[in-house]
């Protein structure tokens, strides 16, 4: 769920302070009408970091309620930086996305957000996965945001490239190729040996996938201590990712080169959280029908997902809540999934044949509804701490150093731990 706008990386954020005044929506605070009806003719400003799959739903809501919608999309990290400075200065949008990796940065400052319970969030709490809901609840019980999608994970692969390499290309055949990640890497090595082409896009994506399969990440489950250097899941993810350096195309995820590689078929496998299906369809439209999707080795996991928040100083909190409740309703999330691939966070749907029997023509009619449902159903909450994102970045850089041959896996592990230690001190 990251924007592809490479060009504005960081720079927008660098100019944040100067520009905030101009970014913060133009409408006057709305007066609730006497009969309790919501106002019309307002402009709701929304800040996101890219393909939520919800843009069209927001437009539709605006049309229906007689309001306007103004969406500003930034890169992933700059988006959160801008939100932070916006909260500090008060020049805020009506709605802002907060991704789970950043939730611990914002949740302690719950007073900067509208408590959505004031508008009836309690009534819809039951619709959502408990742990996804909890990611938007501050320690004092304030509900700062409603959950968007769930990043249940699976694996997308290019059937044509598998065939060309002499591998089975049907889903049963592919799933039989490996029962563990080690075997997955071995198949990749065979593939690269046969074809001379990389198997994976990026070892960093591989690391994130395995890391996201854990029930603990860089912090212990209760958030009391940092376990990035002792958590076996992190170690496993590291070992696997660095062992895959030789079969990786070394394309930095979400970079223009990565987009090009995806469209050109420079690699055969894309580890794919549900929202990635949306990304693939957007970046590589010509590859329709050439992909298929299977489950991950070694269980499900979650990568990503956001809360949609309403800052405390938003001009139109009531309208903003009405929009969120509408576009995040189970019915609408189902539509969004069918259209864009972002997987619903409302478990009521997980029994619904409309979801479980959904197949995607783009992905060779893979039963993506069922695959992602199974990936998500087993999930438990995982604690993500305030330095989650910063630590993850250092691990990503360490893997890059291995991929480009600068350092051996052991050297990079040590240099990464050193770098993280500086980050968390």
């Amino acid at each position, binding site marked *: 769920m990251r924007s592809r706008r490479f060009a504005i*990386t960081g720079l927008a954020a*660098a100019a944040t302070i100067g520009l905030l005044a101009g970014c913060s929506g133009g409408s006057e605070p709305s007066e609730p009408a006497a009969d309790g009806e919501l106002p019309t003719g307002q402009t709701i400003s929304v800040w996101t970091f890219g393909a939520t799959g919800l843009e069209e739903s927001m437009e539709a809501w605006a049309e229906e309620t007689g309001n306007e919608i103004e969406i500003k999309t930034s890169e992933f990290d700059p988006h959160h930086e801008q939100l*932070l400075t916006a909260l500090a200065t008060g020049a805020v949008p009506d709605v802002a996305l907060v991704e789970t990796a950043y939730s611990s940065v914002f949740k302690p400052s719950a007073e900067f957000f509208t408590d959505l319970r004031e508008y009836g969030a309690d009534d819809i709490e039951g619709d959502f996965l408990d742990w996804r809901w909890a990611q938007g609840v501050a320690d004092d019980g304030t509900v700062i945001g409603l959950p968007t999608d769930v990043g249940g994970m699976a694996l997308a692969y290019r059937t044509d490239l598998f065939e060309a390499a002499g591998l089975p290309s049907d889903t049963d055949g592919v799933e039989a190729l490996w029962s563990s990640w080690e075997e997955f890497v071995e198949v990749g090595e065979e593939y690269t040996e046969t074809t001379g082409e990389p198997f994976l896009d990026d070892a960093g994506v591989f690391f994130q996938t395995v890391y996201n399969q854990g029930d603990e990440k860089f912090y212990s489950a209760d958030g009391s201590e940092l376990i990035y250097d002792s958590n076996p899941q992190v170690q496993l993810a590291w070992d696997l990712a660095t062992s895959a350096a030789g079969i990786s195309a070394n394309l*930095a995820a979400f970079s223009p*080169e990565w987009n090009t590689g995806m469209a050109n078929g420079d690699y055969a496998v894309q580890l794919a959280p549900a929202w990635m299906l949306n990304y693939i369809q957007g970046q590589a439209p010509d590859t329709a029908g050439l992909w298929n999707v299977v489950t991950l080795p070694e269980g499900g996991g979650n990568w990503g997902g956001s809360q949609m928040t309403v800052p405390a100083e938003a001009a139109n909190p009531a309208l903003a809540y009405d929009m969120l409740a509408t576009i995040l309703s189970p019915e609408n999330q189902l539509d969004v999934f069918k259209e864009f691939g972002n997987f619903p966070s409302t478990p009521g749907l997980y029994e619904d044949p409309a979801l479980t029997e959904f197949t995607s023509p783009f992905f060779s009619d893979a039963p993506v509804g069922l695959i992602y449902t199974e990936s998500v159903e087993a999930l438990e909450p995982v604690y993500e701490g305030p330095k989650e994102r910063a630590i993850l*970045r250092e691990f990503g*850089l360490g893997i890059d150093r291995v991929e480009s041959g600068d350092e051996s896996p052991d050297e990079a592990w040590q240099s990464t731990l050193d770098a993280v230690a500086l980050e968390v001190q």
Partner: protein
Amino acid sequence: MATPVLAATATARATRRRGGRRSLTPYLYIAPFFLVFGVFGAFPLAYTAFISLFDWNPIGDQVFIGFDNYVALVADPRFWNASWNTVVIWVLSTVPQLAVALVLAAVLNQALLKFRTGFRMAVLVPNITSVLAVGIIFTQLFGRDYGMINSVIEALGGDRIDWVAGTFSSQFAVSTMVMWRWTGYNALIYLAAMQSIPRALYESAEIDGAGAIRRFFTITIPQVRPTIIFTVIVSTIGGLQIFAEPLVFGGQAGVTGGQSRQFQTLALFLYEQGFRNLEFGYASAIAWALFLIIVVLTIINLALSSRIASEK
């Protein structure tokens, strides 16, 4: 008894007031500068110093920690790495840039040159190009897989270079962007200075048999010396704050200046700590360290460059 005293006091006060009003007027004339400087210069400077003494979360706790940020900074290898990178990139870009600019200016100053105005305008074009556009174009030129420079190297029989991953290669690439952008600008400043050199000096030198190169070194350079000092100082201040070029060049890892921080400048390190890791206090300490480094280097530069071709 009291009356004369009072009268005297009143007169003195009146005089002082009149005198005061007289001397106030010039201050009013220059006040706009000081107001603007106070709001956008002095206040942020002081406020940054204030924040640097805190563990500062703009939407959370702000804890006074004294000089701890500075203590941590001195012990932080990332800070020294960024300082070193900044100096290397600055030297790599500034020295060739000013040398080329001098030669360029001398060429543009030739009386016989055709289309002079056209050339003079042309050298300034890079400078008015958006730094972001420059960054994107150069990043593509230096691209590993699809970059034009690697294609040329390959066509000539060399090996592809992963420009971003290497230390020197990445610093070199960043320096070329800075050079490309600022050479023409400095050339125009030198040109202006050269045009004020009396023609007679050149003519008599020519009569005495001095060639073009001799004239350049013994007349042109000494004559434009104050301008050289000016450009060196301005380039120092600018060069030490390089930010956008490496940020764009690094792509996804731009903020850290690459996977090993191999081209992270001080300004990028400041941005990383402040806005990406949300350590505003620490970032403020870095800002002050950067300020001090610029002051020190500018003083050294002033001393060095005033010796360039100084009159004996």
